């Protein structure tokens, strides 16, 4: 039972001052094992804050990040799943499923987490699942001003992932979940 927090596109301080208070009250240290961040934090203070929530922090570079040394893409393995991380501004058309699927195949991961569009989406295709956690602060994007703050918490338990989607709609936190299983693609060699 591993809890992984996925968030990004905070754009602090340029487009938003901070995470919404209701989100901050829920995010307490000690519960989450990993944090993956799509990028555009943009400043070090946000990095430090995330570090206090969980020491295992993975970030990829967004186009406005002030820290230049974050990688463009990152892959990591958590339990039985391979996760890929990328900000998403590199993949054009922005938010296009086919192009993201291409990136996913290149990275060879089961779950790809990207951002940039500031809209939560969760797609499934033959190669795996693409999740966009949206913008955790509700900052405006290059595409639209109408953004609800959102982030994603994944509960990875064996071959099953439950994705909890936290959104702030009209001042209230709404939580939904998405359930999916990984079919065991057992190495055919052993069969």
């Amino acid at each position, binding site marked *: *039972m591993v809890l992984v927090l996925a968030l990004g596109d905070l754009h602090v301080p340029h487009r938003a001052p901070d995470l919404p208070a209701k989100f901050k009250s*829920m*995010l*307490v240290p000690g519960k989450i094992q990993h944090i993956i961040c799509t990028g555009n934090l943009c400043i070090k203070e946000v990095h430090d804050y995330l570090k206090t929530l969980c020491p295992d922090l993975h970030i990829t570079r967004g186009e406005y990040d002030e820290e230049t040394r974050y990688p463009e893409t990152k892959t990591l393995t958590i339990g039985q799943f391979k996760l890929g991380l990328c900000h998403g501004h590199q993949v054009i058309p922005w938010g296009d499923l086919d192009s993201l699927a291409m990136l996913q195949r290149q990275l060879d991961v089961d779950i790809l987490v990207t951002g940039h569009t500031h809209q939560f989406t969760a*797609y499934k295709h033959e190669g795996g699942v693409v999740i966009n956690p949206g913008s955790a602060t509700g900052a405006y994007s290059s595409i639209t001003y109408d953004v609800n703050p959102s982030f994603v918490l994944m509960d990875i338990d064996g071959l099953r992932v439950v994705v*909890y989607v936290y959104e702030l709609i009209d001042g209230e936190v709404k*939580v*939904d*979940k*998405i359930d999916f299983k990984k079919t065991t693609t057992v190495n055919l060699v052993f069969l």
Partner: protein
Amino acid sequence: MVNKRVPDWLNSSLWSSTPLEDDERPSRQSTNTTTTISYSPTVEPTLDPPTPPAPPSPTRVEPEKPPETKDSPSNDSHSSDLSYNDISEEVDSSTVDISRQSQLLAEISKKVINIRDLRRISSQGIPDIPGIRSMVWKLLLGYLPPDRGLWSLELTKRRLQYKQFKEELLMNPSEITWRLDKTRSCDKDNSKSESRGLLSRSEITHGEHPLSLGKTSIWNQFFQDTEIIEQIDRDVKRTHPGMHFFSGDSQFAECNQEALKNILIIFAKLNPGIKYVQGMNEILAPLFYIFRNDPEEENAAFAEADTFFCFVELLSGFRDHFCQQLDNSVVGIRSTITKLSQLLKEHDEELWRHLEVTTKVNPQFYAFRWITLLLTQEFNFSDSLHIWDTLLSDPEGPQETLLRICCAMLILIRRRLLAGDFTSNLKLLQNYPPTNISHLLYVANTLRVRSIG
């Protein structure tokens, strides 16, 4: 004379692949196949009196047992006090032991066991025959009913109950939510459905999500419990580090540790008032050791369940010692320590005065550990098993008996205490010297008689 010998557990049959008798005498030191850290001298030429005849084989429950020709609890003591034992005393005690032993075996093979008689006989010590102690303790703690016919029914019921506890209480919230979902919606297999497209969102049940801060949220409770579980884990790993049963890298030790952890976690969850307190692991350890080493396979397999219930029963008399809020109350640990003081004053005023007034050794410094941990830390493992025999069986109740034994412990070393000052007395009491256990229990017994008069 025997101080410098290699300890006998090093020579025990456990280390060889074929179990061999390390001496002609059937093992007096080990209860069963696993190690004990008893330092009893097995080959003692001076103590080789004419071996008394084997006891008449009574109708026992466990048929195949190496016949114990002799059970002298006195031999299980540390070597240094062996000088107390005369050879003649040995012979006498051995014949007494035989009769006591056969009495005990006869009692427990009856169809309906008289618990009062059982208590009376076992308060003088339970022989180290494999399986006997396990059964007697279960009877004394009320886990097994006196009527033998009801045993299998009762055992099945309890073991099932424990299994249910485990299922309910040891599941992590992921699994719980998964099971709830499965029962709610018939699990449609997403993997077979359309190969691409948006994943459908579904509602969460009861507002349950991992970051929930609600008091009734299973996630929130889970995170709060994590602290206790970590504490339990640390303590279990530190229990009896010298014994292979409890610690080390072997699969066996890890299973045992796992069982201890489960019991303590379930206890903590079922008793939110007291939860887990450091020291409970020490009280649990001997129980689990005895039950797990039961030669009867079924008993050994279900040792965890049996231990849980017996642990609850044993702790019920001593719970208040673990509750910090009750420390200063009438039932708390402080008042029990005061009772010990009173007892000492009654029986040996001179010693009491010297300890408390002259050298100002506050009984809390030594008696706290003696009382809360039921003397498991003061003696070696097999000695503490013998003490527990008396503790569990004495009709006066474990707490009264414990106090008497502690008082006897003080009286036995009175000469050294009277001659010592604060530092040396404290040091002595916190590292109680090895002693002849049956002598100790005998003295404790006499204290009872005198206090009535």
